[in-house]
């Protein structure tokens, strides 16, 4: 009796030891800002609500089956050379353990299909939704707000996707080159952006915040450096952002900005930006100016971006200068680095010109009360 209990205790301890890592996986520390197990949006919440019961079932299956395995191996390890009873099978038991997993997966399937139906309905028919078109490029995200902005054009931006809190957002997902994948882990599950095909994703952010987001499908050399931010702000703040974004930025006022010990002049910077020989406008656009490039990100109101180079550097004038000077090192394969090669930068962009450009880009701001980083 006593030995049996000790055996049982030992077995339980061992099972618990095996289960610990699984439990660890379910806990996200304060650092886990890109985690899927904290949901701040309804789409992610529905997935989490499905995952939790399945995870408990999985843990139970894990403990039972691994326990059975370890117990069997321990209990029946060879003690003598006698040949054990030759048992060839037992149909009843085998039918039982065919049905048992079938029942478990049936429960999981029903839960799954219910969640699927809910999400499909919300995506098909979101109430009072903000429409955004997200377009994947190698290796950055473009966001178009159709019907918002000046009469002749949609509101176009990149890198930061502003959305209102508490109101559904329906995102139309497209790609101009290869397949990308739109993923904001704390708000919604991921959906592919496929050239020649349109996908939709609808979700509502529950909390204001700056959410981390990435491209999740391998899309070429700099795939790892294709990130963006979703900035969820209260409705009034969102309307104010739309209002400001709809206006072209005011022409730069005379002034200076200290960049790496140089003083950048925004007015001179704009002239450099619009100078065809400097190549900026071949790819980039700033509304209200002659810059109408469509290959690269739209740089209107660039001074309010949260990051540079699709999420690889925090926004600051110094980092922007670094990006212009050594972008080819920071993001290999990037289209801009094919123009701004080391030799080209050497001969065509002086440190002062870079400072002026930074001053110009930094001068175009929208004023929004930013929510906390999540």
């Amino acid at each position, binding site marked *: 009796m006593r030995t049996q209990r000790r055996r049982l205790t030992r077995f339980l301890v061992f099972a618990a030891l095996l289960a610990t890592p699984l439990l660890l996986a379910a806990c996200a520390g304060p650092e886990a800002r*890109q*985690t899927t197990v904290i949901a701040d949006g309804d789409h992610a919440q529905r997935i989490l609500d499905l995952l939790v019961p399945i995870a408990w079932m999985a843990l139970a299956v894990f403990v039972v089956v691994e326990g059975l*395995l370890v117990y069997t191996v321990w209990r029946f390890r060879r003690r003598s050379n006698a040949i054990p009873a030759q*048992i060839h*099978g037992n149909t009843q038991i085998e039918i039982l353990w065919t049905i048992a997993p079938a029942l*478990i997966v049936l429960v999981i399937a029903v839960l799954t299909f219910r969640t699927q139906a809910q999400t499909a309905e919300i995506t098909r028919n979101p109430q009072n939704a903000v429409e955004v078109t997200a377009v994947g490029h190698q290796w950055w995200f473009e966001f178009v707000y159709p019907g918002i902005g000046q009469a002749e054009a949609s509101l176009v931006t990149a890198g930061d996707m502003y959305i209102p809190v508490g109101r559904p957002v329906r995102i139309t997902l497209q790609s101009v080159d290869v397949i990308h994948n739109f993923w904001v*882990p704390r708000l919604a599950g991921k959906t592919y952006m496929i050239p020649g095909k349109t996908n939709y994703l609808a979700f509502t952010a529950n909390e204001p915040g700056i959410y981390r987001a*990435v491209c999740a499908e391998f899309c070429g050399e700099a795939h790892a450096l294709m990130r963006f931010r979703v900035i969820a702000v209260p409705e009034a703040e969102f309307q104010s952002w739309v209002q400001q974004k709809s206006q072209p930025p005011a022409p730069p006022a005379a002034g200076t900005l200290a960049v790496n010990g140089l003083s950048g002049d925004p007015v001179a910077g704009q002239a450099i930006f619009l100078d065809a020989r400097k190549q900026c406008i071949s790819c980039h656009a700033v509304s209200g100016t002659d810059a109408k490039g469509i290959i690269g990100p739209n740089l209107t109101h660039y001074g309010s971006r949260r990051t540079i180079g699709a999420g690889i550097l925090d926004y600051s004038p110094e980092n922007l200068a670094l990006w212009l000077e050594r972008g080819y090192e920071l993001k290999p394969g990037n289209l801009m680095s094919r123009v701004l090669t080391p030799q080209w930068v050497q001969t065509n962009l002086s440190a002062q010109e870079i400072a002026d450009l930074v001053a110009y880009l930094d001068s175009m701001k929208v004023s929004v009360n930013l929510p906390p980083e999540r």
Partner: protein
Amino acid sequence: MAIAERPAEGVRVPTPTFHVPPGLAGWFSTVDHKRIGIIYMLGAFAFFIIGGIEALLMRTQLAVPNNTFLSPDVYNQLFTMHGTTMVFLAIMPMNVGIGNYIVPLMVGARDMAFPRLNALSVWLFLLGGLMLYSSFILGGAINTGWFAYAPLTERQFSPTIGVDFWILGIGLTGVASIAGALNFIVTVLNMRAPGMTLNRMPLFVWMNLIVSFILVFAFPTLTVASTQLLFDRHFGTRFFLPAQGGDPTLWQHLFWFFGHPEVYILILPAFGIVSEVLPTFSRKPIFGYAFVAYSGVAIGFLGFLVWAHHMFGVGMGPLANAFFAGASFLIAVPTGVKIFNWIATMYLGSLNLTTAMLYAIGLIGMFIIGGISGITLASPPIDLQQTDSYYVVAHMHYVLFGGSIFGLLAGTFYWFPKFTGRLLDERLGKIQFWLMLVAFNLTFFPMHIVGTDGMPRRIYTYEAGLGWDLWNMVETVGAWLLALSVLMMAYNVFKSLRAGEPAGNDPWDGSSLEWGVSSPPPVHNFDVIPVVHSRRPLWDTKYPELEMAHAPGTKALTRAEAVSRERERLKLQIEDAQDDPIHLPSPTYMPLLLALGLTVAAFGIAYLTAPGLLAVSLGLVGTGVVMVFIAIFRWIMMSHKDSPHIAH
């Protein structure tokens, strides 16, 4: 030679009359399934080491955030080649190698059904692998992921020769795989010893038969898709180019229609090995033979209905997703059945915990984890959070490393004595097992955690401070320990080949036919084709007093009684078997020449549209075609020369 049957008139020792060239020539011209099996295994092990080095380089890069050890392009080449290598050049050929050696012995055949085709397969596998690897020095290996999604693999986005070499190299190994699969099917269906009904075949043979059928149906899809891609890249078609009306999701459907059955091609042979190893070291028959065999068949069928669970995020719509989710959930049932049957096989047994047995048990333990993580991935809503994250990397390695590789190691420790006549060092083997088990879990378990915390796959670097740093370091340490355990394995093989303990014919008290012949077996395998009376033919002679399986309500027979009853029934067949001449084909270089010809032509095709290389390219294709024709002609002309080799 202790065989289930021995002719009454005494032992005849037939010797093949042809001359086997000595040394390397004997290997290059061989058509012997055992030698071919060994070439497969050595080649696969070499590629396994290379794929492992690629993994180590990647893990070293990812040890710390923002690392600059590898450039993104090199990293992308490495992860693509790691996946391609492990799937096509390591696990698959290792399965084929062990199967090649063991299956004919297990079914009581003297060789595979088509020995020369068998030789062609092994050379095509090696040359296809070498062609793929030559791209590293000829302009950069493929860097698009082993799934080669279009349009990233189209010329516009991948202008280097890497993709072409991948298409053609994998194409060559594909020919090898299909030829090999047909060979296995015919061997198993037509060449079994008298009395070995399908329901008496060892489960390892069952699993190889199922895998061969899967291969024949799955692999052509990949060949078709990659040929379309080749045409897109070089000859102006637009199968996968959306701007001209093509469809990138077509590639995904075609690729995964191959790719998912491929998972079962990789894992089922390991399941077969475990189904041999567990009964042997438990000294019990497999629990529920029919359930284990037919659950394999069920997995084979269902495996063709689940491919789009790799594509839940593609936007197929909730109905299609639900169908593929349901089919994927269903696969859990036959898989669960297998695991329960394995545990029941050990239950009430007398477990001899040899290294082979430890690996078989390890496979069950690790596969349970891989199976459970597969369930959440099969649920489309959860999949949308987990797919393309490190969670998938964890899941897939629990299935393919914890499953396939552990199974292959179990098989290696189990059959090495049969291959070489010497045992692997058991003490070293057990240390290696525990080291590998710990290192494996250190490497891959944390990937569940970082994946759940939002770390995407296939990224060459990541930011600090997202809760991933510690786990990535743990994974890297684990990977290096894993490398150490693989090194120990290599050392064990090297050492045991020279100085291992002599094994004898039957070191494990086995029950299947291969343990009845010498280690290594003679070139013709069996002096006399054995006659089989049960699922465990060798135990019929070794333990005649044991009871046979019997239906409820019937009287139990001892094995000896059952055998004598069977003999009456099989009389005619037994006589047939005695009259069978020993028929072995002679060694020939033609399969090698044919494989070389196809490879030379493939190199030519890769450069057909390269500027200024048309003449060279056409020259290569021409040379290759000529080599192929010479090889086929001489192959056909020599066939009739085999008939005199009768030693009987």
